[in-house]
């Protein structure tokens, strides 16, 4: 078990290292001089040269790479050009809406998807299954920003049930802030539920064909118990994976949704950073989000170990 965990941990570290490397490569392929970009159009060439030296851009690429690596390990993701604050700090400031948005949309997606997926698999080929599958596919085909716009138009502007945008003003109560998340969370959750429905269904179908489900039935067990105790527990493993994956996808979905709803989250920050040419922020966000993804995957792996005795040795 300890070997399994340390093995996964090592794997995770390797992947993280590669993630950092990929981000470094992206930094490098950005055309133009980062120093010039940082200093803006009015900079003199002497200023640029000074900053290059200060940033170590005049050193060999490999040295720069290791420097970058060392910085990242120390949690130094650089300084936002536009905001004048450390990237990590800027990201942390915006974590809350993104976190809750992701959490709520995930909750909505799972709440919609699990029952539908399970029942679809159980009643495979039925009218319910067919319509659920089609609706799931439809949901996955809707651009979330488009859905968001339509929802703003209808629920916020026409009906006035929810705020149109933003995250409440300063000192807005938690409830108010959550109120701002209702529409975006639904826009995102509905779109993401599709993937979970399909996976739940597929993985339940898989499991329902397994021999031990037949064994369970041969014991004279009721269907509900067969499905919920024997089948679902086994199907949960791939489903958990997809839920974790969805969580990561939601972060990416948040990029678009936050922009539509003007939520001051990480996604919004990234889009603004692109428009402001604030490269350190883009890179930092990439690193953090990818890191979260790797971490979520690792945690799911660990969860497997809890759920599945087979991985436990």
């Amino acid at each position, binding site marked *: 078990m300890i070997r399994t965990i340390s093995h996964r941990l090592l794997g995770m570290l390797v992947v993280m290292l590669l993630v950092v490397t990929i981000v470094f490569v992206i930094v490098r392929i950005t055309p133009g001089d980062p120093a010039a970009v940082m200093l803006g159009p009015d900079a003199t060439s002497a200023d640029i040269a000074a900053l290059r030296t200060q940033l170590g851009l005049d050193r060999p690429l490999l040295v720069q790479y290791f420097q970058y690596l060392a910085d990242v390990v120390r949690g130094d993701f650089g300084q936002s050009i536009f905001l004048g604050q450390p990237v990590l700090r800027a990201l942390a400031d915006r974590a809350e809406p993104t976190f809750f948005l992701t959490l709520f949309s995930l909750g909505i997606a799972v709440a919609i998807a699990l029952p539908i997926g399970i029942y679809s698999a159980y009643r*495979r*080929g039925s009218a319910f299954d067919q319509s659920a599958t089609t609706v799931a596919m439809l949901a996955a085909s809707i651009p979330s920003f488009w859905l968001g716009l339509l929802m703003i138009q209808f629920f916020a502007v026409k009906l006035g049930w929810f705020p149109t945008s933003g995250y409440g003003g300063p000192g807005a109560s938690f409830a108010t802030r959550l109120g701002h998340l209702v529409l975006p969370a639904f826009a995102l959750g509905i779109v993401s539920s599709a993937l979970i429905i399909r996976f739940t269904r597929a993985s339940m179908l898989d499991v329902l064909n*397994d*021999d*031990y489900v*037949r*064994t*369970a*039935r*041969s*014991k*004279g*067990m*009721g269907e509900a118990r067969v499905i919920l105790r*024997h089948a679902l*527990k*086994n199907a949960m493993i791939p489903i958990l994976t997809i839920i974790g994956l969805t969580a990561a996808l939601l972060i990416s979905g948040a990029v678009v949704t936050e922009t539509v709803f003007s939520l001051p989250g990480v996604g919004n920050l990234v889009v603004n950073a692109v428009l402001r040419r604030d490269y350190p922020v883009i890179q930092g966000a990439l690193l953090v989000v990818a890191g979260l993804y790797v971490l979520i995957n690792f945690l799911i792996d660990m969860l497997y170990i809890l*759920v*599945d*005795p*087979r991985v436990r040795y």
Partner: protein
Amino acid sequence: MRDALAPDTLLSVRNLQTHFVSRSEVAKSVDGVTFDLKRGETVAVVGESGSGKSVTSLSIMGLLAHPGRIVGGEILYRNRQGTVRDLAQASAKEMKRLRGTEIAMIFQEPMTSLNPLFTVGDQIAEMITLHEKISYRAALDRAAEMLELVEIPAARRRVNDYPHHMSGGMRQRVMIALALANKPSLLIADEPTTALDVTIQAQILDLLRRLQSEMGMSILFITHNLGVVAEIAREVVVMYAGRVVEQAPVVDLFARPKHPYTEGLLACTPNAARDVDPNGVRLPLRPIPGSVPPITALPPGCTYAPRCTYAVPGCTGAVPPLFSVGASHLSRCFRHELL
């Protein structure tokens, strides 16, 4: 009909028909299967792939997968109260009550038939608590006893093991313990040793024989291996392409097969004593020509006719009935006299 069930008969399958109907085709997987199973006895159903032997067993259990449906015939079963019930007509609720208590089943794949996420003790205890009002603790104790019964070493400790800790043979023992936990009257064993090595197969057959003599249940034993049949069965039902082609007491069947298919099967199994001459020269085997027809495209009349060396044009005209060819010996062959 129900009254016609002899008192010592536990199960009587009569003209059972189970079809799998999909949009494009009908698979008559079981098409008129008839046999009886007496108390405390073992009947082996033997056949190659596609013969319908497994579907027969699942029909009895009421565990047919989705498009499969019993479309005709009866499965008469005498329950513990002594009432004869037709399982083909029984309600889902009644089947649920019978399964696991009176009728239990073990499967071909010991590796996958146990739920990997629960301990073996838990799975056996679950079987017990499903049908009996006893505490989980007590059920777990009973589970340990069952494991001891099936000769699992250090059974008390292994109750807490997960299936993946066990070998195939051990898992099949667990399956047997599970099946027998509620002391069923009928055990359906669907190719229980096929996936196992010979030395393990011998252990399991031995175990089944012992448990049967101790507990007195009837066994319906599904297999494709004539050697296993010879070892375990009292009565043999030979199936081919969904139909029973021959039925006889085991000694009779091997000594005097009355259906060309049975004869062919026995003849084509290599046997050095018979097929190698005293000088060590190997004589050619006598195989059955052709191959088993797909269940969705069966030939007319006698389904074995195209491969049969005795076949005459008349064989394809009508489905031959089961002819009585000796004491409790039946053959579905128009030309059984020739054998």
